[in-house]
Each structure stands twice: as C-alpha cells, then as structure tokens.
C-alpha cells in the first residue's frame, strides 16, 4: 500500500458504513435497482412500439426502409467497443493502473462522441427528407400514419441519445477524478457504477438496432 499511497488519494468510508466492502456492495445494489428503474422507463416506449406495430404492420414495413442499416450497424459496433473499453477501465482501476484507466475511459468517451456524430448525421438525413418528428413531419409515403413510426423513432433514439450524453458527462467526471488519483484497487466505486450505467445504454441499443433498422 505504501507505494500506492504516493500516487492515490486514500478513500474515507462514509460514517454510516462499517467497511469499504459494505459501502461498495450497497452502492452496487442501489445502482442495480436504479438500472431496474431504467428498464421500466424504456419499456413503455417498447410497448408503444409493439402496439403500433400490431396496429399498422404495413406502415412499419414501409417505414424501416427509410432508415440506414449501415449507420445503425456502425453505431452498434461503436457502442460495443465502448462497452468493452469501459469494462477494461474498471479492470484497470481494480489493479490500480491509473494510466490505463484514464486511456480506456478516454476511448470510451471518444466512442460515445462518435456514436453521437453518426446519430447526428442520421438525424440530418431524416430531416432532409422531411421525416421530422410530429407536427413538422412532411415525409412522403404510401401510409397515412407513417409519422407515428418516426414519432417513435425519435422518442426512442432521442431518449437513448440523452442517456448517451449523460453518460458522456459522467465519463468526463470520472476522467477528472482519475487524473487526481482517486481510484485504485481499494476504491473504484464510481467507475464501477458509471460502467454499469454505460452497459445499460449499450443494452438498450442492442434492442433498438434490430427493432428499428432491421425488422420490417
């Protein structure tokens, strides 16, 4: 530990916990509970998706052709890689490798940024074709309820995008704290928590990709 002392800021266990172990487990339990909440939060949109898919199957078939599979695929891969680097960042913190933690977090952040750039390009392309959300929708199509698909599309990807942005904010916060040397083998709770959150964001996308882009 003495060697680590110079590099890292020692973590104080909060007064109402007995041990660092208990503190870590509690935080993780809380985070998982929060993730359960996130799942239900997204689920209503998926239910809406299922309902309208059932009501207007032909419209969905037509609508998904407006989306670019390549862009969706690219984004899936980008997010998977970011999940991997996030997991590696946690691992590096576990073994007190400050430099690697920092680099992996940075790569995760870059991937998240790439995801948002691709998303931005996709949105621009949709806007260009008049496939705007709701009242601004001027897209051409044979189905008269085509706007509903894009209503759902923008809600789902928009909400997911907001989660990515929040995740990016959290990763930046982690980067700063990593730089200060706050995370090491004895204390890396925030990295672990943000990691769990980030994987959930990935998980949601794993479902969004086939449902929106692939299955007509």
């Amino acid at each position, binding site marked *: 530990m003495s060697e680590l002392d110079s590099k890292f800021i020692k973590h104080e266990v*909060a*007064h*109402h*916990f007995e041990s660092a172990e*208990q503190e870590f*487990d*509690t*935080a993780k*339990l*809380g985070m998982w*509970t*929060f993730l*359960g*909440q*996130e799942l*239900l*939060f*997204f*689920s*209503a*949109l998926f*239910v*809406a998706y299922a*309902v*309208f898919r059932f*009501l*207007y199957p032909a419209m969905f078939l037509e609508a998904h052709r407006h989306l670019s599979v390549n862009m969706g695929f690219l984004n899936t891969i980008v997010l998977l890689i970011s999940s991997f680097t996030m997991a590696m960042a946690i691992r590096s913190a576990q073994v007190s490798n400050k430099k690697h933690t920092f680099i992996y977090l940075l790569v995760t952040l870059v991937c998240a940024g790439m995801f948002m750039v691709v998303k931005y390009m996709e949105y621009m392309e949709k806007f260009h074709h008049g496939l705007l*959300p*709701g*009242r*601004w929708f001027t897209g051409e199509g044979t189905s*008269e*309820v085509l*706007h*509903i698909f*894009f*209503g*759902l599309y*923008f*809600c789902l990807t928009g*909400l997911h995008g907001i989660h990515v942005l929040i995740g990016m904010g959290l990763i930046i916060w982690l980067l700063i704290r990593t730089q200060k040397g706050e995370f090491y083998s004895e204390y890396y709770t925030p990295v672990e928590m943000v990691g769990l959150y980030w994987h959930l964001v990935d998980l949601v996308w794993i479902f969004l990709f086939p449902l929106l882009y692939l299955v007509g």
Partner: protein
Amino acid sequence: MEHEVDKRSFYEVKKGFMSWAITLDHKRIGIMYLVSVLIGFGLGGLFALALRLELITPDKLFMADKMYNQSFTLHGAIMVFLFIIPSIPASFGNFMLPLMLGAKDVAFPRLNLASFHIFLLGAAFLVLSIFLGAVDTGWTFYAPYSLHTDTSVVCAVFGAFIMGFSSILTGVNFIATIHSLRPPGMTWFRMPLFVWALYSTSILQVLATPVLGITLLLLMVERVMNIGIFDPSLGGDPVLFEHFFWFYSHPAVYIMILPAMGVMSELVTTFCRRNIFGYKYIAYSSIAIAVISFLVWGHHLFVSGQSDFASMLFSLLTFLVAIPSAIKIFNWIATMYKGSIDAKSPFLYFVAFILLFCIGGFTGIVLGSLSLDVNLHDTYFVVAHFHYTMMGGVLMAFLGAVHYWWPKMIGKMYNELLAKIACFLIVIGFNVVFFPQFLMGAKGMPRRYHVYDPEFHVYHVISTVGSWILAVGFIMVLYYLIQSLRNGEKAPDNPWGSLTLEWKTTSPPILENFESTPSVTCGPYEYKGSPS
C-alpha cells in the same frame, strides 16, 4: 476508531437555514418532507373546501365551469403528488427507517437530499402551473383532452414528472438501506413491519414510477410536437395512454396504502402490548400486494373500450389483491386478543382506519365486479370509494403516525384530550362528507359535474356540511400540535412503552441516532409473556 458521541439532539447540533437546506441527516430531511406534505395537504384541502362549497347549489355559485374544472384537477393533483404519495414513506420513512434498523443514516444520504430537492422542484412546477392557466384535465391527464386544452398541461405534467424521480430515488435508497444497513442480529424476520411495508413500497416506487415518467414525457412530446401516439386524430390510441397511466397509477395507490398498513402494525402492537399475530403473513402480504398491484391496472378501463377479454382478466386479478389486505386486517384484530389495550389517540386512528378502510375495501369489491362497475364507473360512488381508502385509510394512518411518533420526532407531548376530540370530529365529518356520495353515485350522479340535476341537491348539501366538520377537526389538530411545539411538556424517550429500536434512543434522537450501534437478539414485538 472510537470517537466522542455528541449527546445533543439533532436539532441543537447545528442551527440556521443552511443547516436544513443542505443537511445530509435523514431526520432533518424527514422533518422537511413532513412540513412540505402538510403544506401540500393544506393547499389541496383548500381546493376541496372550495369545491364542496360550490356544489352546495345545483347551479353555479361562485365558480365558472372552467374554474371548477381547474379546482378539482388541482385538488386531485396536489393531494396525490404533493401529499399522499410522499406523505408516509418520505416523511416518516426517512425519519424512522434508519432508527428502526438501528443505523446511522440511510444508505445514500446525498441522494436522499437530492430526492428532497427534486421533490421541491417538481412541486414548484406544479404550483407554478396554477398561475400559468391552471390545468383542467383531471389529475389523470387523459389524452386527447389534455392534448388540446389551452391550460398549462405541460407545466403541471413536468412537475409530476420531476416528482416521479424523487419518488424513484427514495425507493432506491430505502431498498439499499434495508438490504445493507441492518445491524448485527436483525434478520429479515426481525425487522419491524413498518420496514417491511416500506420495502414493498420501495419496490413499487422503483418499478412503477418510471412508467409514469415516460408516459408524462410522451404526453408532453405529443402536446408540443403531435407525434401521434396518443392523439386519435393522428392515428394514435388514447386508450394506450390510459394503459400507461394506470400501469403506474394503480400501483401508486398501493404506494400510498402500504406504508399506512405498516403504521397500523406498529400502532396495534404498541397500544395492545402484544406481539403481532401472524408476523410472516403480514410481511408476505405486503410483498404480495406489491406484486399483484401491478396486474390489476385494467380495472380502471372496464368501460373504456378495452377488450372484453382483458376486462375479464383484470377483474379476476383485482379480486386477488383484496385477499392480502383482508389477511392484514384479520391479523391486526387477532393481535388485540388478550392484549392490554390503551386507547390513546394514535390507537383511535387505528380503529378509525380499520372501520373506514373496510368500507373502502368492500366498495372496492363492488367496483371490481365487471357488471357493477359498468353502472358505477365515473360516478360519485367511485369518488366516495377512493376517498374511503385514500383518506379513510392513508390519512388516518398518517394522522396516527403523526400522533405516535410526534414525541420522538419533536421531543414534546401534545394535549391528549384535544387529540381524542379531534379524532372523533374527523371521523364523523369524514363520514358525513363521503357516505352520501355512495348513495348519490349509485343513483347515477356522475363525477366531475359542475352543475348537477337538482334532485341530487340534498346529498350535496349534507356532503358540504360534512366538509366543514372535517375542516374544524383538522384545524384542531393543527392548533394543539402548534401548541405542543411552543410549550408542550417534554416527552420521555419511550412514552408508549414500545419495543422497536427507534424508542431506544433519546427524544428527539441525537445526531448519530444511537450512542452505540444496538444489537438485536429477538423479534421487534416481543412484549412481556411472548413465547420465545
């Protein structure tokens, strides 16, 4: 690492505005919630009195149509979001949960403070909406009406959306606290039943509230952008909104009632000096209620155009949720057997709860039956039913909790005689207000009617007069509690002779709750003579 324990009460350790605004102490946060929900209750109550006054004549008295509609919406929204949902879990839950577990604080104190601030922010939006053209949709915000009315739907809905997060985070916090911070020796089945009730409430808060959040978010998006999910003129389905809304709002009534039931378990054991009858049944029934409550939301949609198959399914499941509630009531009554019953004011609220909640429950059976619901849906019968469960249930438990824990939280006693008189007034006033509503509802008086058929006049007059009796009762409670605050007699540490851990510390508790972490060797209610 031993350190000197500060023996002053948590009020005295620090003073000033900031010592409250940014405190991490669960006790202070609990007190702040208590004050907030009481303000919410007062505000909602004023709307209720105004509504009842308006209805004393069949025609317009002093409110225009729109103003009446706005008033009942605000009465509902404020009572639900600002009072009933946070009432017991956020105020007493926050204050008592760590004390009952013998812990120093909740698991995430900073998150706890954040929940409170989020709650205030949401409340601010809801109150702000009153001034921006008060919302007139009914607290259920049904689409498509809410999509087209010119009142401040977005502002009010945004307020409710934000408060939802406060509720979720409190739930997360409590679940983590109950899992991780139990002291040595306190196994799951040695926890007080109020803690079990809070645990099942938290499950509901975490799993149901997000659906409300996304529903309200979609409603806002729909209103601003017309994306066509709920708006039938754009191909959407308004009944889908009802499904989404009630997926939360039905479990929400159990978010309200479960902690109330937890309070009942505490009251009955303390004032009967009896170990609880059927501890495990009561604990499991809390969890059962939490789970089944997710399966019954469709009983709000029996006449909405939901398919008959779905109605049948939801009706069947609805009857199942009645069973665990019945089990609890029977167990509480059985707990009184051979007890040593001291009918102090908190116990009177227990009695009031049982009587009123039974009426609410029985009429719930009536409304759960498909054929009867067709006739009674959206009439005053429903209004009376949910006031019997929510007001007769939750509010009685809330008042019971206030009277029971007041000495612990404030450190002062109140005037017992006035408390008893107020309790009688409230129960009588309550019945005068709401019982006639059963009758007129069954006769066909629809709810949310500003002007009504003169043949219902007499029922409404009785109801309005009752609301004044009720108001006098509440003012009395407020009076003697303020009197107690100012010059009440100092409360002993354990005025009722309870056995749960919160009574083992001083009144009011010290900053760190206990001088040393208590260790637990037996169940929470092992009064003298308990079988070991």
